[in-house]
């Protein structure tokens, strides 16, 4: 599903990823870990074409991201659900509208998208905040809205960047259960995190990054 072949990414003078080669298969759930600034977010950004690789070859689904056209990018992104590290909620829209957005972008009508949105918000335990605006939510609530938005359109790939950084242990467990279930239904899931509690004893592959280099892949 996702194939990095010697991919490097350099921001101005900062080398963020160095010759990364890895493959994530369809239906896998994997973790990316490493200390702050190791390149986890950059790796995810490459997958959804927010950044372009400076070297190497990167294939996501049917798209070769070194040669992807402007017209194809929205199509690529519609097969991916993303939990951004900084949430990226739209402050001027209600929680309902925020979560509905990926469905609207896919052309669903009000009537068709309603149930999906409600289901998704119920999963993250925020059905009661449907009318609230993001700035009036607590940090953890915002993070859960971001998660609901990422899963609502049942994407082929789910990228979650530090998805539990603002969540208490209980909520963290609930979210991880959701990710596992979505994965069981066939979605490829990539979770970037530095919380070892998430991946220890998970039985999944964990990619370890250190200063932009892939230093190891372990099943923990």
């Amino acid at each position: 599903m996702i194939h990095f072949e010697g991919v490097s990414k350099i921001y101005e003078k900062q080398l963020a990823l160095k010759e990364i080669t890895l493959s994530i298969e369809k239906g896998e759930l994997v973790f990316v870990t490493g200390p702050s600034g190791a390149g986890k977010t950059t790796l995810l950004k490459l997958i959804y074409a927010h950044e372009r690789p400076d070297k190497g070859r990167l294939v996501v689904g049917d798209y070769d991201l070194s040669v992807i056209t402007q017209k194809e990018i929205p199509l690529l992104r519609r097969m991916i659900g993303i939990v951004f590290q900084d949430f990226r909620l739209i402050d001027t829209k209600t929680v309902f509208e925020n979560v509905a957005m990926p469905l609207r972008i896919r052309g669903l009508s009000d009537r068709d998208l309603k149930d999906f949105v409600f289901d998704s918000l119920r999963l993250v335990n925020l059905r009661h905040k449907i009318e609230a605006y993001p700035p009036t939510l607590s940090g953890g609530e915002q993070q859960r809205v971001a998660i609901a938005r990422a899963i609502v359109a049942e994407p082929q790939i789910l990228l979650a960047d530090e998805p539990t950084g603002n969540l208490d242990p209980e909520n963290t467990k609930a979210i991880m259960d959701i990710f596992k279930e979505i994965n069981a239904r066939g979605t490829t899931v990539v979770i970037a995190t530095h919380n070892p509690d998430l991946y220890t004893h998970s039985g999944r592959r964990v990619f370890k990054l250190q200063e932009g280099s892939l230093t190891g892949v372990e099943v923990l």
Partner: protein
Amino acid sequence: MSTGYSFRFAFESLKKDFWINVIAALSAGVGLFLVAILSITFYSINSVTKKLPEKFTIILYLKDNTPADEINKLLTDLKNNSMVKSARLITKDSALNELKKRLKDSSFLVEGLDENPLPDSVEIRLSSEAVEKALLKDFIKELRSISYVDDVDYGEELMESIVMIKKTVETSGIAFMAVILTGIVFNFYTTIKILFYRRKEEIETFKLLGASGGFIRAPFLIEGSAIGIAGGLVASFMLFGLTQVFGLLSQRLPFIASLNIQPYMLSFLIILPLSGALLGVAGAFLSIGRIRY
């Protein structure tokens, strides 16, 4: 992409920042209003000066004893000339009568004359196209060369000032319009740029969620056109107010009746909101710029 949603989105966001949008619409309205009154003023001045040359007259003084058929031939020739609007023979007798009238109380001066000392003359009125100075000069030279024409009187000064007025009105009118229009375009641009700055983050997020360019632009374009239409209505309203003021004024000052807008009012009520909408859409389009993923 559901158009219904784009509309809802646009109107929600119009409502959300109601006052900034009201200000934007008012600002656009003032701009459109200025353009409107400028074009009206320009148009009226232009149509006034267009009529001026008709009032410009050339007098041919004929030599004594010019045969009547020569005079008739001259008149027909003149009437066939495209520069000439009318040509009229003024006999020496009617000229004398006119002079008497003009001298009024002092007409006793000419009362006692035995013989009429005045010549026959032909009064030529020029059509409005004949303003071109060089052409006119040629025409007058030609007239002078006619053997039985004694003298040509054509008010050189008057003609020069007419040409000048026309040029001045045209040049400064166009310059003024250009300046005001520039101002309006800038104004629209900055106004819509506000909408853009307010939503820069949102647009970025939409792109990351896989929205197409159309999906992102639609609400902006709708919003821009709504503001533009509102601005157009404001301008129409101001224009209507102005006609009322003019109506009141023109009763006391018949002078300004020439700037009457009333007959065009209906077309402005359509044109102004329409061009407001166009400007709004164009401004929104420009201020969003190209959407690059």
